[in-house]
């Protein structure tokens, strides 16, 4: 008994003063930090309440249901007029932001991959042109580039009567870009159904071809067949339905064009600047990703008899993508966040509509800034969650 007791006594840590105990200290620090934060936060909330009450500004999100009373210059997806509510104005702004971000991401990815591959080209001139492009674009502020496109290039263009004319269907002038608009008539659903059917067929085809190759070793021309299905089925659908689609062309009426698809110069310059700027960063990411794949991988693929095409598709690109995806995600996030520069050239995105006009009208700064920040935070988290999922899928599976 006595021996056991002494063992226990020895195993007990030496008694330390409370202020030297790491756990007690950690608790103390955290209480201090939390208390300080609560105090500062409380003061800020208190001050804000006082200030709002003194200036006679309402609080809460009730204003979203009241009539907005201002016009929005561009609303391609939703009908919007001055009688609509602030909530509808918010939706229009959101959709405009998403539109810019989606178009920008598509263009920036395409141009960025081309430039990144060109940077690694064996051709000296192509590589140098890509290098100059990258170094010029990424070292000039984005806002300056937006201004150059908008005030420097698009606004000085001739007026509607002297438009730059492409085959009488596409017109460019200082009011924007005017393109033919597709009109979908009855029966267009058949084409869409055929397209969806083609996609489903391709998914099953890929599975079947993989299985067959695993079992018999025979390869099936999946790519060519898929393209054939993707184009062929909708064409058959169109023939069956009797081509239920026509184009509405823009026409010069009086001082401006009417009809067709109108793309305002703000949208054109914003997407051009965003995608060319971000493409320079994506190009560097792509270059780094491809250079990160060991040369031995290519040599080994050739050694087992793969031709250059399959080598690229089956060996190099999957490994390069693993390096490319994470930084590419943050470029997509940056592009989405940078689309807020729309406010500088009066493209009605969420920042201009809400942070500009609505803030001016209602003065409810806290709610409005919270809505805008909440939206961007949501988009950021959504994109990074999607990319994390994709990254996990692509990640190296180690034994």
């Amino acid at each position, binding site marked *: 008994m006595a021996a056991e007791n002494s063992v226990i006594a020895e195993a007990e840590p030496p008694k330390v003063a409370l202020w030297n105990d790491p756990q007690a200290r950690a608790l103390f620090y955290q209480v201090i930090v939390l208390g300080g934060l609560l105090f500062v936060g409380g003061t800020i909330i208190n001050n804000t309440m006082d200030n709002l009450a003194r200036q006679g500004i309402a609080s809460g999100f009730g204003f979203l249901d009241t009539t907005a009373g201002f016009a929005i210059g561009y609303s391609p997806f939703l009908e919007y007029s001055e009688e609509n509510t602030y909530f509808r104005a918010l939706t229009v702004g959101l959709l405009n932001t998403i539109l810019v971000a989606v178009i920008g991401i598509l263009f920036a990815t395409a141009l960025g991959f081309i430039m990144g591959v060109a940077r690694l080209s064996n051709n000296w001139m192509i590589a140098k042109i890509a290098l100059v492009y990258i170094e010029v674009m990424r*070292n000039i502020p984005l806002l300056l580039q937006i201004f150059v496109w908008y005030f420097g290039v698009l606004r000085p263009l001739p007026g509607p009567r002297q438009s730059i004319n492409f085959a009488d269907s596409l017109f460019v002038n200082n009011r924007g870009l005017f393109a033919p608009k597709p009109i979908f008539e009855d029966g267009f659903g058949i084409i869409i159904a055929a397209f969806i059917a083609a996609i489903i067929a391709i998914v099953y085809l890929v599975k079947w071809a993989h299985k067959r190759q695993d079992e018999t070793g025979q390869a099936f021309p999946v790519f060519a067949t898929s393209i054939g299905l993707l184009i062929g089925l909708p064409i058959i659908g169109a023939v069956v339905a009797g081509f239920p689609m026509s184009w509405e062309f823009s026409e010069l009426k009086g001082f401006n064009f009417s009809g067709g698809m109108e793309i305002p110069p703000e949208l054109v310059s914003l997407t051009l600047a965003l995608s060319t700027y971000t493409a320079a960063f994506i190009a560097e990411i792509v270059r780094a990703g491809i250079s990160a794949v060991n040369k031995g991988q290519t040599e080994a693929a050739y050694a087992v008899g793969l031709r250059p095409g399959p080598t690229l598709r089956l060996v190099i690109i999957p490994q390069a993508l693993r390096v490319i995806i994470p930084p590419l995600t943050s470029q997509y996030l940056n592009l989405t966040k940078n689309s*807020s520069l729309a406010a500088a050239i009066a493209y009605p995105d969420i920042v201009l509509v809400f942070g500009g006009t609505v803030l001016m009208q209602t003065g409810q700064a806290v709610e409005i800034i919270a809505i805008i920040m909440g939206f961007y935070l949501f988009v950021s988290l959504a994109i990074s969650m999607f990319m994390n999922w994709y990254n996990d899928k692509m990640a190296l599976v180690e034994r």
Partner: protein
Amino acid sequence: MMNTQAQTYEPGTHPDLAPPPSTVGVQGWVRSNLISSPVNTALTVFAIYLVYSLVPPVLNYFIFDAVWAGDTSDVCRNEQGGIIGAACWPFVSVWFKQLMYGRYPDAELWRINLTYVLFAASILALALPQIPGKKWTAIFVLAIFPVLCFFLYAGGSFGLVEVETSEWGGLFLTLVIAITGIVASLPIGIVLALGRRSNMPVVRALCVGFIELWRGVPLITVLFMSSVMFPLFMPEGVTFDKLVRALVGVTLFSAAYMAEVVRGGLQAIPKGQYEGAQALGLNFPKMMYFIVMPQALKLVIPGIVNTFIGLFKDTTLVSIIGLFDFLGMVQLASTNPDWLGFVNTGYAFAALVFWIFCFGMSQYSQFIERKLHTGH
């Protein structure tokens, strides 16, 4: 040469032949880099066409057809009063003072120029590895220099005339915002990075929340917030200068990015360094100050420079909330009735200045990266 008969050599004694002329020199270079295959040749032709169709018009616009001298916009107009189709550099020379210093009084410009000289000298002393005394220069730049600048720029004390911040502008304001942002965000970023790696759950959660919040939103909303919400947070009667509010926004924003850069450096320090420091009996502040931070910060110098480049480009956004930085001044000058239509020249000048700054800094950061790389 006369002897055409084949000479015989013992195996292994034949002198080395010169390489075939088609593989060396200019010819060899062209063959392997420009026309090595049909595709390559086509690409070369395409590239030459691209250069031919882009470079001469650009050079003509900005250099050969451009107007270089003059005091009014009339030198850039044709007989009908229209605008010539080329750059008008008098736009820059006429507005040069405003583009550089804003509306800062002429008589007081020496204050700004003095700090430029001091700053350039100390940056040079910091950047070049050969110059000794890095520690004292760094202390001067980070601690004494900002205070000196504040008193010099704002005036109102030591017998200097007071200059309102609304008179600050141009490239000067851009530099003030960018450098204040980076210098002030470094300590905040270090604290946040340490907090994010802390074992205390409350501290860690707060730091993660702060960092992710600022990194998730665009700078423009932060600037809007600092200009409209910041005044609401203050008790009645307390007002802050517009520039100070923008500076607070920029600093908090870049602190979040800085925190992630510093965290990268902290993660790169092997665990043995921490354990070694603890084995020596150093407490947390001493361990960080003497052992971990010197190594971590040295590693992240390229990251800090890159953050600074990003911040430097982002300072242009303050023109949206009504401060006249370099780009804001270009915009303002281009709306002057006499100078309507010459904005392209202003943009070209601004682009050139920004490009030189950013490209120079990125080259420096790559140089440091290479230098650090060879050490291991």
